[in-house]
């Protein structure tokens, strides 16, 4: 009995010490990690709109400088109007906008999708025509490295550029990932709405397609405004 009690006490003590250590490390390092994540988010937003090309690595200061100069964060009302953070209401959606000389060049919607092993977080940038995808990036995911994890690779993300979220009649169709190659599976005129899949990552592709469709549907009011060139925004 005393043997068993000793094991229990030892295990309890060890767990206590270890959890204290981990808590201390986690709280102590939070500040640095939060800073890294903020930079990483900004880097991904810039990458999505094409302000950082491909795999080019920029210093933190450069990222901050370009971001501050070009990107502004707005909130989208259910009607599709853009408002500043101080006028935001419950239910408004965050939107990042690339401003160049007072005109909007592109807008970025945050993507939060189901994945195979966990959530996929990223950004989808659309051109100011409200139709064409300017870029797609993933900044956090838990997919299998080498399979679903390939969604974070440049070769996969490059395929999204230029795809259309509405067909030529103006009906919303979203953009989906197919199983296999687009040119073998999808008829000609529809190819603009599909992206090549990753082999071994069919489920990741399916979940991400659904996630992107949902995000784009939620942002349709503002996308429609962009298509009609009638975007209301604070100066």
């Amino acid at each position: 009995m005393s043997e068993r009690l000793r094991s229990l006490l030892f295990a309890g003590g060890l767990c206590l010490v270890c959890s204290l250590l981990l808590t201390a490390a986690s709280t102590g390092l939070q500040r640095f990690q939060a800073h890294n994540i903020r930079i990483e988010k900004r880097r991904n937003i810039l990458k999505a709109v094409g302000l950082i090309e491909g795999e080019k690595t920029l210093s933190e200061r450069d990222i901050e400088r370009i971001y501050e100069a070009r990107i502004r964060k707005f909130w989208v009302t259910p009607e599709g109007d853009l408002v500043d953070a101080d006028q935001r209401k419950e239910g408004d959606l965050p939107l990042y906008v690339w401003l160049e000389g007072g005109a909007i060049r592109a807008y970025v919607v945050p993507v939060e999708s189901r994945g195979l092993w966990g959530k996929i977080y990223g950004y989808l940038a659309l051109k100011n025509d409200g139709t064409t995808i300017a870029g797609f990036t993933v900044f956090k995911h838990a997919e299998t490295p080498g399979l679903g994890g390939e969604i974070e690779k440049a070769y996969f993300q490059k395929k999204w550029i230029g795809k259309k979220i509405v067909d030529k009649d103006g009906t919303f169709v979203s953009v989906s990932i197919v199983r296999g190659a687009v040119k073998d599976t999808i008829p000609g005129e529809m190819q603009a709405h599909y992206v090549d899949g990753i082999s071994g990552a069919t489920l990741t592709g399916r979940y991400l397609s659904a996630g992107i469709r949902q995000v784009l549907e939620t942002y349709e009011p503002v996308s429609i405004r962009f298509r009609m060139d009638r975007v209301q925004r604070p100066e």
Partner: protein
Amino acid sequence: MPDAVKRNRLQRLRKSPSYKALAKALWEANPISKQILGICSSLAVTVQMKTALVMAVSLTLVVAFSSLIISSLRRAIPPNIRIMVEVTVIATLVVLADECLRAFMYEVSRQLSVFVGLIITNCIVLGRAEGYALSNPPWRSFVDGLANGIGYGSVLVGVAFFRELLGSGTFFGYPVVPPFFYKMGYVNNGLMRLAPGAFIIIGLFVWLEHTMLSKKKG
């Protein structure tokens, strides 16, 4: 005769248990190329020198300190829950290492992704804890852990050196293949950037070591 004294000292050093443990882990019983342990991570993180080096350092620190802690506690650890205790100690150290990487080397930690966390299940770490630290004093266990980590890391960095050089033409990210090579038609070997390339390189390392060791034995 100072020369003789020196030689004598060297011989004595060679016979010391720390030296023997070090030599064994680095060469005669190298975790990767001799014991074929830790292959999974060595395939995954050896595309670039930088990730391989960070992984090697993280694993070395984890093995060394887990061995030190487990060895210091070896008389207190109840035998019936010893594996659980070992894994708890290892897991705590690995999570600490991962948190530090995330705070100070974010880019590298993203590239290493799950593989830092997977150090917990790396057979080298538990193997040293179970096979050495439980029955040896703390200092020797620490050295043993350090040696095994370096033994693992040396193969990792060696593999990464060839993979980065042949696969991307760079060394720690700096281009080393002269541009006129490319002009004359030289192409980076894409296979080296994929996992099968690592298999081939590791295979060559294993071959090299086994041949040299068997020659030594005569």
